[in-house]
């Protein structure tokens, strides 16, 4: 079956479509490079990708305004890029560089850019739901027309913190937007083992009274259109909103996971028709771009990734002597914390 182009979405302008394409490409190409570096042993630790989910990250990322804030998880690299994080920044984190966003202290997708409104990813799933609720509470308290967003997978939906955070957002009616990444699995566990009703948008409305819509998470235009509408509803004082984006996790849970538990052929069939990058490429062709123009965009994105890696590789390694710096924003008085061995 041929690739299904993204559906027409009049709310998404031509320039935005090009932006979206750049973002899904950047995520795809960056993560492919990371997988290679991992296999070569040049990146250590864990490597997670959002292969198959780039449209969610890109569409939701572009739906936010510059003063909005977001707490992405580990499938949303394009959301970082949408806010101005560069491939070089991200590579510095994967490579554990001293000048990276976590100073080499954390790795892979475990980073943010607080100064650009991106909270650094915390592994403990569910923790970020109350955090964005609190950011949104600050906006509401101060009368600011800003929105706070986070993402969560089906597995993350099972965590207690998620419940507490959603409920607080609903009770306080704060401008928070929750994007559910329904990608069919949580690590090796299929969604049917996470919950009885796997329609999370129904659950989120039925359980927490948060308005929720489902969207095709492989269609970047649809994601941008739907999430932007949710963001604007939140911004306009209609309380928290949710969007459930349906996709398929095309890699294993992480680079070490060959996902042999996934039914044979499922991902391949899906990729053929619903690869989010190719769906958007097909849309651009329908929109009147020619193959060459689209190829140029691909090349430009690849060049951005390549340049980012080269830049990042030149960054200095972290200095072990500085490891204890920054434990506190304000270290308690002198003479403290220095004890004989």
């Amino acid at each position, binding site marked *: 079956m041929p690739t299904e182009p993204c559906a027409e979405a009049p709310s998404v302008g031509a320039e935005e479509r090009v932006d979206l394409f750049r973002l899904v490409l950047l995520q795809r190409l960056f993560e492919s490079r990371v997988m290679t570096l991992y296999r070569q042993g040049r990146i250590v630790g864990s490597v997670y990708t959002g292969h198959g989910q780039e449209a969610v990250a890109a569409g939701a990322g572009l739906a936010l305004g510059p003063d909005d804030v977001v707490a992405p998880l580990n499938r949303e690299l394009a959301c970082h890029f949408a806010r101005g994080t560069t491939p070089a920044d991200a590579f510095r984190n994967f490579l554990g560089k001293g000048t990276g966003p976590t100073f080499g202290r954390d790795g892979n997708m475990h980073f943010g850019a607080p100064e650009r409104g991106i909270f650094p990813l915390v592994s403990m799933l569910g923790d970020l739901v109350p955090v964005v609720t609190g950011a949104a509470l600050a906006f509401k308290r101060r009368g600011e027309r800003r929105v706070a967003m986070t993402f969560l997978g089906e597995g993350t939906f099972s965590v207690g913190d998620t419940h*507490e955070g959603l*409920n*607080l957002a609903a009770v306080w009616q704060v401008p928070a937007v929750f994007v559910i990444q329904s990608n069919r699995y949580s690590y090796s566990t299929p969604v049917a083992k996470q919950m009885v009703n796997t329609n999370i948008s129904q659950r989120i409305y039925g359980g927490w009274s948060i308005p929720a819509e489902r969207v095709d998470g492989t269609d970047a235009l649809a994601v941008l259109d739907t999430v932007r509408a949710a963001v604007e509803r939140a911004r306009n004082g209609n309380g928290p909103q949710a969007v459930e984006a349906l996709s398929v996790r095309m890699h294993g849970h992480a680079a070490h996971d060959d996902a042999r538990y996934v039914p044979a052929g499922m991902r391949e069939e899906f990729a053929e028709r619903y690869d989010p990058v190719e769906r958007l490429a097909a849309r651009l062709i329908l929109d009147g771009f020619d193959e060459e123009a689209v190829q140029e965009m691909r090349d430009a994105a690849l060049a951005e990734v390549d340049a980012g890696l080269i830049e990042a590789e030149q960054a200095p390694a972290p200095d072990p002597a500085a490891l204890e710096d920054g434990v506190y924003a304000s270290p308690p008085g002198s*003479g403290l*914390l220095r004890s004989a061995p």
Partner: protein
Amino acid sequence: MTSVGHLEAPGTEDDTAPTGTVTYLEAIRAALGDAMREDDRVFLLGEDIGAFGGAFGVTTGLLDTFGEARVIDTPIAEEGFVGAAIGAAWMGERPVVEFQFADFLSCAFDPIVTVAAKTHWRSGQSIPITIRCPTGGGVRGGPFHASSPEGWFVGTAGLKIVCPGTVEDAYGLLRAAIDDPDPVLFFEHKRLYRTLRAAPAAEGHRTPIGPAAIARAGSDVTVVTYGSGVSTALAAADVVHGDVEIVDLRTVWPLDEETILASVVKTSRVLVLQEASRSIGAAGLVLSLIARNAFEDLDAPPALHAPPDTPVPFAPELEDAYMPSVASTVAALDELLSY
């Protein structure tokens, strides 16, 4: 039994107290009010803290003064509202969270040690939240309402822990905690709420986070203590045969190593006194510090006076035997002095 509408804690607020004095509880309330008046970014989150004034009445009146946007009643969701405070702090606010009992910190352990503690080190983003924790026993609270759980957090990089043992520090440490750019756990002792009374701290007073205080100077023996132990130690010092120096840690983590060691070097004998059961709390860290750094300066093994390793029991017969008292502290000091 003494206050209608709020949980009983020994003592009263409005008895025949000396004029010009305030209770430890009133000092905390004053610190909240003053901080909120001075800084719009300060707001309160917690269960029943609005119209009801909180389980112990600490926030009584603050809703009327500051309104619903700054005194926010929450659902029962400890990890949720700690997380929300973190998010608000990220946006530049200065949230102050009230736990109904310090025991329930167990329910929000994860966002405290994972998110609040590690974010600055990992990203440079400071998380200026204050968590108020009504702590301690002597109020017949039993295993779930009387513990001293500061030890869960002692040693955790990125957190600060303060435990006021005086009326002045109840005010001054809370003001300092709210100012502080780091997450601070503020342990306010339930038994001291209405039993400790003194002249109020000067408005705007800050007790700096970090330095311990010499609550009493002496030459024969050092007591290192904090929170409820301070008044116990002071009372014991008055009767024991020997000149007792008392180090009131005030900040229980990170430790003021210099002040502790200087006192031990001076007196050559040390008793660590805490209300937390003996194998948790701050005692291990303090004794480890002293053993490693003042070994040659000691004339006797360092000693520990603390409850046994059990939860806090409910029955008065049990709780009274469990808690360090003035008498039991005197006995511990006598033993140490006669070594």
